[in-house]
């Protein structure tokens, strides 16, 4: 994604130096700090309605990070799917389940232990990564130059990401489309199959635009505030 193309087909490789000298580092630090703050707020919030809104904010911050890293298409996906559609689907789920989390479990020792071990392993893993933005990593020296050369030689469309995704590696993208298809089918079977057998209600009952927040969700919110 760092190779996201300019209209001329030139390759833009951002090095660590160019990132550090610009405003980018400041903006990135600010966004990542805000994301950490939002994560803490999500953990401490017991009202699921608030958690969904905070998760949307988190996704928008993530989209801004992707914009800062010049990955515009990832940012678009994150904003549309992460912040937009999944928030709506979470809200629709809250309409079905109620918006209060179960009371906090008494013992937090084991979950805390697992979280610290996994988090420590991930942080330990980052020490094995190449420096951020380095251009001489295997990712940029193995197949990427071949794709760049080929898309010049064969006069591919100027957006190299599209050329790689839909032409050089079209088979991978077919697999992704099949994954989306399978996931959608699985969720649809779970959601629709059971309902017809158990309840047999008409189709359009339910999530009505006139009352997007169920009445008991409001009651829960006031209960939280008092």
């Amino acid at each position, binding site marked *: 994604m760092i190779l996201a193309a300019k209209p001329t087909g030139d390759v833009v490789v951002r090095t660590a130096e160019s990132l550090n000298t610009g405003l980018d580092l400041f903006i990135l630090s600010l966004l990542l700090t805000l994301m950490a703050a939002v994560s803490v707020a999500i953990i401490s919030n017991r009202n699921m309605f608030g958690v969904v809104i905070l998760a949307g904010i988190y996704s928008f911050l993530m989209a801004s990070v992707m914009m800062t890293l010049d990955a515009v298409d990832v940012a678009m996906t994150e904003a549309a799917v992460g912040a937009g559609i999944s928030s709506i689907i979470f809200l629709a789920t809250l309409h079905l389940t109620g918006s209060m989390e179960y009371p906090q479990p008494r013992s937090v020792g084991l979950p805390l232990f697992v979280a610290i071990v996994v988090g420590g392993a991930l942080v330990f893993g980052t020490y094995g990564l190449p420096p951020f933005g380095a251009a001489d990593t295997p990712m940029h020296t193995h197949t990427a130059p071949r794709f760049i050369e080929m898309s010049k030689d064969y006069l591919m469309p100027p957006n190299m990401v599209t050329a790689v995704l839909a032409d050089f590696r079209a088979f991978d993208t077919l697999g992704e489309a099949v994954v989306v298809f399978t996931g959608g089918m699985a969720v*649809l079977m779970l959601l629709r199959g059971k309902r017809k057998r158990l309840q047999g209600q008409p189709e359009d009952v339910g*999530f009505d*635009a006139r009352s997007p927040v169920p009445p008991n969700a409001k009651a829960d919110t006031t209960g939280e505030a008092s």
Partner: protein
Amino acid sequence: MRLDLILRVGAKLILPFILVFAFYVQFHGDYGPGGGFQAGAIAAGGVILYALIFGIGKAKEAVPQILVERMIPTGVLLYAGTGVVGMFQGYHYLNYTGFHPDYLRAHEWGILLVELGVLITVAGTLMSLFYAFAGRGR
């Protein structure tokens, strides 16, 4: 939200631009950032916004549920079928060189068809997920 004037007018103002932007992202994906997945997500977001403001019934009149659910396999079939057409023209699976005498045009056509398949699948999946959740009353 059907009675909220500001939301209704605002949504009516924004909706055409959302849909046009989705198709811009789709058809301009060769030159600018984006492609089928992004376009599908944006288009589905537009329809879901319409459903939120004007009610799920109105949205199902505009984009019927049965159409949305059939879009999911249709996109995958379009993608896979594009590859099969390439095979019948004597190239490898998903090699688009035979679609047009000009090499660049042929591959643009192939990429466009394949991305259209992705768009149809993604938009169909997201919209039918929303319909499925919204249609499940308590």
